[in-house]
């Protein structure tokens, strides 16, 4: 599903070049539940952003679901993101002026699905993460765990092949974190590939495979 070979990525500042990823090779099969671990600065978030087509890479090759992801136009990147990927972020990244159900429905707006249909579907997905009652609340009326569940529902609604989560439990207490991980497990059981970036060992231990990054290479 995700095939990365000899991937390089560096960030240029005015004075020097910071090499973040130095010839990375990663293979993730369809349906896998994988975590990426590493200390801060190890390049794990950069890797996730490249996998999520949110960032570009310098050299090497990245294939997603068989397609070469390189030098895409902004529009194509948006379409691939919309169709293949679902994102969950540490800071939830919900739109504060939209209710839970509208947030969940947002990806379908860009798939040009009618409002009625996408709101109906969004309610179903909210039900799946146990938030049916909260559909019409605004994000700031909900707890962190609830907001993250809304974000997961949003990531799932476009039925992507891959769910990418960047420190999804980083802002949550341990009990809530476990609930979130349980949801990810269910999602994975439904056949989706799940890739989680985390620095928490307990979270990583719940996944099928751990990829350890240090200084831009896998160890």
């Amino acid at each position, binding site marked *: 599903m995700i095939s990365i070979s000899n991937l390089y990525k560096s960030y240029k500042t005015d004075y020097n070049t910071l090499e973040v990823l130095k010839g990375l090779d990663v293979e993730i099969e369809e349906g896998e539940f994988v975590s990426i671990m590493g200390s801060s600065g190890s390049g794990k978030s950069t890797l996730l*952003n490249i996998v999520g087509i949110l960032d570009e890479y310098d050299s090497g090759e990245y294939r997603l679901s068989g397609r070469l992801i390189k030098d895409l136009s902004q529009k194509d990147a948006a379409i691939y993101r919309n169709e293949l990927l679902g994102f969950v972020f540490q800071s939830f*990244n919900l739109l504060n002026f939209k209710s839970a159900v509208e947030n969940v429905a947002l990806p379908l707006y860009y798939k040009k699905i009618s409002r009625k249909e996408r709101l109906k579907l969004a309610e179903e997905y909210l039900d799946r993460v146990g938030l049916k009652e909260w559909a019409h609340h605004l994000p700031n009326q909900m707890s962190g765990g609830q907001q993250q569940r809304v974000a997961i529902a949003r990531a799932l609604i476009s039925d992507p092949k891959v769910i990418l989560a960047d420190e999804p439990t980083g802002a949550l207490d341990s009990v809530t974190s476990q609930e979130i991980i349980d949801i990810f497990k269910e999602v994975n059981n439904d056949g989706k590939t799940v890739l989680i970036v985390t620095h928490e060992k307990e979270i990583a231990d719940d996944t099928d495979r751990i990829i350890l990054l240090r200084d831009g290479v896998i160890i």
Partner: protein
Amino acid sequence: MLDYDKWQEIIDSISKHKLRTALTAFGVSWGMFMLVLLLGAGNGLRNGVNHNFLDDAVNSLWIWGGSTSKPYKGLQPGRRIIFHNEDYKTVEASIGAVEHLGVRYWLRGGAQVKRGNEVFDYPVRCVNPGHRYLENTIITEGRFINDHDMSSAAKITVIGQLVRDAFFTKDEAVIGQYINIKGIDFKIVGVYLDEGQENEMRNIYIPVYTAQKVFEGDDIVDQIMFTMGDISVENSALVEADVQRLLAERLNFDPEDKQAIYISNDLEEYMKFQSFFQAIKIFVWIVGLGSILAGMIGVSNIMLIIVKDRTKEIGIRKAVGATPASIISMILHESVLITAVAGFLGLCAGIGILWGLESLMTALEIESEFFRNPEVNFGVLAWALFTLVVTGALAGLIPGMKAVRINPVEAMKG
């Protein structure tokens, strides 16, 4: 279906950011509102003074006698200069620029005007047929004084609307009726209106020859005036000098004596006002452009802040699959919708106030010499609104395009 969806999304976004929307809207509304008021006030001022000139022909010279201030050919200063019928006929014949010539003569000691038991004091103006062009007299019933009335010294009269209202009821026929002026019956042959000041319609006109024969027995006229057709201010000044020279020769006074006769050049006065208005107009335009510019800057600033404020939202939308074009289109639609609606409301408010002011003035019958009919030019306003909307759009577009280029991950951190 899709468009409906898009607009719903936009209206949703606008309605959930009330402060942001209100700030933008206020900037645009205020700009348009002030512009309408300014243009309206400027036009009102101009219309007001222009209207004062409606009363008289604006291209006319008015001449009346004074007293000599300089000795001339052995004559002492302080001599009164009096015009006679022959003088005005000479002016009419000798000055090429004369288009219509009028004369005026006042009954000495005023005049009591009677009809039956009703007695009023109305000014009686003894004039010739050409006088009507000088005062822009509009005949509403019957006719004005004609040459035959003059030569036959007919005892006829043309009365103003206010005189008619005083002596007669609305439905009463007045033509052929008589009024008594200083003991002599005059037959009414016409009624007139005057668009300028209302007081003009208090006058009673009778043929000047009749007055000379019946009341005084001489051939004096008090005032000579004539219109000059399409003439430039420079040429009208030349005519003025010609008249001075001609009358100086006929009446034996120093051509340089500015007090022997008085000449008032209406065209010159009118042109002075016109250039004054040109100045006001330019001033109003400068202030108007200034307020539009201020509006543009205000709207641009707010748009910049809004897009900055929305960076995170843009990042989130990108992450869930929004194309750059869809985001730019969303920002543009929102800004155009807000500025257009707000600008239109400001425009309506401004026009509403002008309209209210005008109907208030009409209702209270306020006749101001300096303010009248504060109209505005809709074409100008449409352009102003268009400019504001385009500015708002551009001001949103540039930072919007920048925001769209930002990596969504970076944007979401903000």
